[in-house]
């Protein structure tokens, strides 16, 4: 048995409804643990992005779902069917490899037809399906070409069409934009999201690019050293990070250590009112996270804004980065000498600031996270 149901204690997953369910999956290569009790599910029509640095185990999850790797424990369920013991070829997943892995000696058409040919579909059915897919991905004029004659973006579309041909249980994208340059990446991921929403196939992407994750995913799973730190909508993981890792991996974050006292976050010289979030015990050690854009700077004391004062600071550096202004502000807080602040154009135009200026530092919003990892 590859898994022991007794070991699995998780929030209940609706295996019946989900397209993909990964339950208690762990994997080690030799002495190195790569995945540690991974649980998540992907609904029909949903795009889930697994986000993590290299070595976080995200590729291994994908390979385990595809059947290219065997988990040490746990199970993989595709549309209600336990496929943990099935070899890759019997699972019917569609994998879009990082390098696309198009068959070099086959034309675009033959690449797309391959899965159907293997399934011995009749010629007419194959022909119709290939025509339909070539139209879907817009490669009509390239159908007789070989992969080496196509651009990266075109190759990727062939890879997707090829996987869609046999109506896969799930599409698995292994860092699909890794080989492309920044501009094409941004265009392609928008295109792919539109395409996937049109055809409604459950999909899992893996990436190390947080911007890509935020833009592509209906939900994002953040992986750190083989553990799933948090999974939720882009809004949730960005605005309500549950761990310090999630807070810092997705976007920039300023972090302050302290504790809870009478409904307040308290540290030396700081006391901030919490808005109703009663899940922290009095005296509990916590971390306070705030994003650069959650900071509010004003020259004069101005209390009309809805913010709480954090500290007095001195502007150390002002950098213009296009859409907004990035400031480094020197503060005198425990464990923290500098904080990072972003100011939007509307602000910078009305209230220009320069290095050396003294400013009160206010917080528009912040988030408290438990100091230890939740078990």
């Amino acid at each position, binding site marked *: 048995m590859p898994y022991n149901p007794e070991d699995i204690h998780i929030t209940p997953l609706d295996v019946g409804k989900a397209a993909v369910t990964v339950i208690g999956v762990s994997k080690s290569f030799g002495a190195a643990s790569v995945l540690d009790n991974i649980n998540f599910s992907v609904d029909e029509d949903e795009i889930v992005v697994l986000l993590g640095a290299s070595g976080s185990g995200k590729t291994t999850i994908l390979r385990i779902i595809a*059947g290219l790797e065997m988990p040490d424990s746990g199970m993989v369920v595709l549309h209600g069917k336990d496929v943990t013991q099935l070899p*890759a070829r019997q699972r019917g997943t569609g994998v879009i490899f990082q390098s696309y*892995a198009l*068959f070099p*000696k086959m034309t675009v058409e033959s690449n797309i037809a*391959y899965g159907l040919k*293997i399934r011995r579909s009749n010629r007419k059915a194959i022909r119709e399906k290939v025509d339909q897919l070539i139209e879907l991905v817009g490669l009509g004029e390239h159908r007789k070409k070989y*992969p080496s004659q196509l651009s990266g973006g075109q190759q990727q579309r062939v890879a997707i069409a090829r996987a869609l041909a046999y109506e896969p249980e799930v599409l698995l994208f292994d860092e699909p934009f890794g080989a492309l340059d920044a501009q094409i990446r941004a265009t392609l991921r928008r295109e792919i999201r539109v395409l996937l929403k049109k055809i409604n196939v459950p999909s899992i992407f893996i990436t190390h690019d947080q911007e890509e994750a935020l833009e592509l995913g209906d939900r994002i799973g953040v992986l750190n050293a083989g553990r799933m730190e948090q999974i939720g909508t882009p809004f949730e993981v960005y605005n309500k990070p549950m761990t310090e890792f999630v807070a810092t991996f997705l976007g920039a974050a300023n972090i302050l250590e302290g504790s809870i006292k009478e409904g307040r976050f308290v540290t030396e010289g700081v006391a901030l009112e919490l808005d109703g979030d009663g899940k922290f015990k009095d005296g509990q050690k916590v971390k306070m996270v705030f994003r650069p854009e959650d900071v509010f700077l004003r020259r004069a004391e101005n209390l009309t804004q809805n913010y709480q004062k954090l500290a007095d600071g001195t502007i150390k550096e002002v950098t213009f980065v296009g859409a907004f202004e990035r400031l480094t502000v020197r503060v005198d807080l425990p464990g923290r000498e500098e904080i990072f602040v972003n100011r939007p154009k509307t602000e910078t135009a009305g209230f220009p600031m320069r290095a050396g200026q003294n400013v009160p530092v206010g917080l528009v919003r912040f988030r408290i996270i438990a100091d230890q990892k939740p078990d």
Partner: protein
Amino acid sequence: MSANLSGIKHTRGFDIVKPLSITMLIVMMLPLILLPMLSIFIFGTGNGLGSFWRALKAPEAVFALKLSMVTSFWATVFNLIFGLFAAYVLTKYNFWGRNAVIVTISLPTAIPTAVAGFALLLLWGPYGLFGRLVGAENTPRIMFTSYAIILANIFVTFPLAFGVIKPVLETMSTSLEEASATMGASRWQTFWHVTLPSLRGALLGGALLTFARAVGEFGSTILVSGNLALRTQTAPLYIFAKFNEGQVEAANAIAIVLALFSFAIFSILFFARDWLEAD
């Protein structure tokens, strides 16, 4: 001050080393390769094309050429299949003794062909391990038949096809095979539809190399074949025999054919592989 800098022309002095070294290269090749090749053609056709043609049409000559082609063909078929199989197993699986297997396959490159022939004789000859079994009555004899020539050819060309196919297999991305598997293909289907087409160039190259080498084989063949005219005499043996008998013209005619043949194979190797390997 800097106004007229663009008017200054830069020229480089004549480099004597270039024409000198090219000339030297050709002068060195002349007596070593080009002139010997040329003399075959000059002497072979010296008495007119008619006598060349007559020498070529001699039954013994025709037989020798045919025998060379047929035995080389079967040796090529065997070594191509074997080389492909060996390369596939050795790139796909890692096992204890893998390097020993690779060295063993490559060994015939380093063994003198006369030694190879002698070794085959010891094994298959009347007192050899296998020879005792097959030499008895009502069993086919191996030594001093065309089978012996095929065996000798297989031995000396053993590593050639393998050596061409293995590096190509090694550079093939495993994700191609994985992609094929996720799309529902069995191992055999993946091999047939994905792996094999990518090896077209290597297979052709390996086959031509093996065949060319087998057609020219002399050292091992002369020991195992018996060198009997119209029975076990291959083209290189024919050249040797006729030369010994003083029939230089007969030897020369076959030499021309073999030389042209090698040239043709070399040209195919040179041009067709690029074409086959192009996507």
